[in-house]
């Protein structure tokens, strides 16, 4: 908190004398400051805040001839859906938010999404990959993440290339997001002709995976794919290591991409993660910073390498900023039209939204990569982009040799 206050003060003192703002652009959102989604939600919030401070330091968002300062109003949703709608309505009606960002997670975003429709506000959704929300007839939702059904495509492509005879165990959290991912993965594996020998969901609060791991052994699986969020995914990775499972590949959702995952030590080695973004990717952005610039500035402020939650947060900001500038207005319909037209490359990858009524706002431009925890020459753990091989920074370690 102190750090945040200090950096805000510094940025305020740097920017205050030079720029005179016409007005504020208010962006409202909730974030999980407490509850089980906190570890995933915090980097996303940091991404938002880094963008805001940089925009304001550079003179704000240009709308016509005026410069607007970005102002955030945010509340704690406690990682539960019960208050999300009340808070979003408050953001629109009392805090006069011009635009909305989504909360973190598909579940909370599904609850918040309807507010954008009811009150006619553009909502950029990030940290919310589940695709169903976009199929309900919305006009103002815009998704930053590759949809859940394509999440594990890169991991399965890698398996297909390295070991087409692999036996795959799908072990995933019994929750909206992970289940949608697993369903998509199973279909994709079928399409590639891969052999899925086990398909099992576990309760989100599972802390002891041994019964499931015993089943994995019995099934003869050589590749384990699945997971859910940070808490369950990191526990699963640790127990896979403790039980010395002889797997050729482990690919888990979300958890290995949260910087805290490195604390698992040897248990993290070899674990791969489908990722929306990695610091090493090299896109030539049409607007906004390059991946290297973003990574450097994020690291300077938060002293940790950004994962894709942070990048998604920051990218939401620049995409909205670009759309407002293109529209030359704060009017919802004009900004929505600019977003509908967008087909651009940013440091985060290509961004394009579905414009068909049946799935409006679904992200169709962005591709995922596969990252893997590997050791450098000094034995220090670090994440490397391993797939697609052409964009990779290191070859995929397959099988994992511990």
């Amino acid at each position, binding site marked *: *908190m102190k750090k945040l206050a200090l950096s805000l003060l510094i940025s305020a003192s740097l920017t205050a004398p030079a720029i005179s703002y016409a007005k504020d652009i208010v962006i409202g959102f909730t974030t999980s*400051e*407490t509850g089980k989604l906190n570890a995933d939600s915090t980097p996303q919030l940091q991404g938002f805040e880094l963008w805001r401070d940089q925009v304001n330091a550079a003179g704000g968002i240009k709308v016509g001839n005026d410069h607007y300062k970005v102002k955030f109003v945010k*509340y*704690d949703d*406690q990682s*539960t*859906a*019960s*208050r999300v*709608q*009340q*808070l979003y*309505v*408050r953001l629109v*009606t*009392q805090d006069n938010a011009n635009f909305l960002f989504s909360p973190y997670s598909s*579940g909370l975003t*599904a*609850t918040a*999404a*309807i507010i954008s*429709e*009811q*009150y006619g506000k553009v909502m950029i959704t990030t940290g919310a990959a*589940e695709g*169903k*929300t976009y*199929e*309900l*007839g*919305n006009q103002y939702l815009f998704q930053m993440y590759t949809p859940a059904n394509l999440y594990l495509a890169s991991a399965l492509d890698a398996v297909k290339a390295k070991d087409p005879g692999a036996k795959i165990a799908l072990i995933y959290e*019994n*929750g*909206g997001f992970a*289940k*949608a991912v697993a369903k998509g993965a199973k279909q994709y594996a079928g399409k590639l002709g891969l052999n899925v020998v086990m398909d099992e*969901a576990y*309760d*989100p609060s599972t802390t002891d995976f041994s019964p499931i791991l015993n089943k994995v052994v019995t099934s003869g699986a050589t590749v384990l794919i699945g997971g859910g969020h940070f808490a369950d995914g990191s526990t699963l990775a640790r127990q896979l290591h403790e039980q010395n499972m002889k797997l050729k590949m482990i690919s888990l959702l979300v958890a290995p991409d949260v910087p805290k995952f490195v604390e698992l030590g040897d248990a993290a080695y070899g674990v791969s993660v489908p990722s929306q973004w990695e610091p090493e990717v090299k896109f030539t952005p049409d607007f906004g910073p390059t991946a290297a610039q973003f990574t450097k500035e994020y690291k300077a402020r938060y002293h940790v390498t950004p994962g894709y939650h942070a990048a998604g947060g920051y990218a939401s900001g620049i995409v909205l900023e670009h759309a407002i500038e293109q529209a030359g207005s704060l009017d919802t319909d004009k900004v929505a039209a600019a977003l509908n037209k967008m087909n651009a490359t940013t440091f985060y990858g290509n961004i394009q939204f579905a414009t068909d009524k049946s799935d409006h706002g679904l992200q169709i431009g962005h591709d995922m990569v596969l990252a893997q925890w590997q050791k450098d020459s000094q034995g220090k753990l670090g994440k490397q982009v391993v797939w697609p091989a052409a964009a990779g920074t290191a070859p995929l370690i397959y099988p994992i040799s511990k």
Partner: protein
Amino acid sequence: MLKKPFFWIMVATVIAFVVMPIFGGIGVRESLFLAAVYMILALNLNLMIGYTGYVNFGSIVFFGLGGTLGIYAITVMGWPLWAALIGAAVVVALLALLLGLGILRLRGAYFALATIGVVEATKSFVSNFDPFGGSTGMYISFSSYKPLGGPREALWIVYFLVIAVLAASLLLGYMIKRSRFGLGLFAIREDEDAAMVLGVKAPLFKAIIYSVSSILPAMAGVLFFFKNGVIQPDQAFELTLSIEAIVMLMLGGQGTVFGAALGGFAYEQFRGYLLTSATFSNFHLVIAGALLLLIVLFAPGGLTGWLHERWSLTRRVLE
């Protein structure tokens, strides 16, 4: 009943809920919507805890199951909202009656534990039952709101329906309290064995009140999730909300209609204020916890008990 001042207090409460958002605007309506849902949960839980002396840790199962069945009826079977409300309430009440006949043989801590088991078992069932969408849940298409005038206009109708359910909850609590049936429940609360000796059919009474206490929360569940736009087992069967309902009762004072309603209202306003207050929002959980602890320590009868102690006249008015 019309001569009793408390009846008119209830009428005034309902009128206030109807009028306040009309003048106060949408923000007020959102806050009162959640307050009304919490009051419905607390008022119906009061029938079990306050009247019968059975601590039900799993009251949320009625809310969640009602929501699940109602949203299933709307999204999959294409029922209108009113039919889904009635259908969900009837099915949940019947299930509760059957379940009640079984688990209400248990007493004290065993019963309390069994009710937690019911929540977890139901959540697990719904999470794995594909017609209800499994753990992904069910999403309501925006076109489902068209019969009510569109997604935005539907909110007002849903709000007034919730107030109707709240009015029914107040009236139900009040009427049971003043009935012969209610007297039987109080006898069970004080000493179940003695009550049975006196001719109270305890097992039947308990099963009936367990079932009755499920009807209105089930309706509230349908309305809450219809407004929510999506229902997922995690949200529908959240044990925390069940425990919060008990906290609301303790805060307001169990055993009285006034206490249950006040507890639900005060709890929602209090938590809502802390969450959005610029000063307290960063440590809202600490303050909420500390204040609740103080109330339990120094006012074990809740706000109503505290009022009764100060001014004994309130005993006759606030029932």
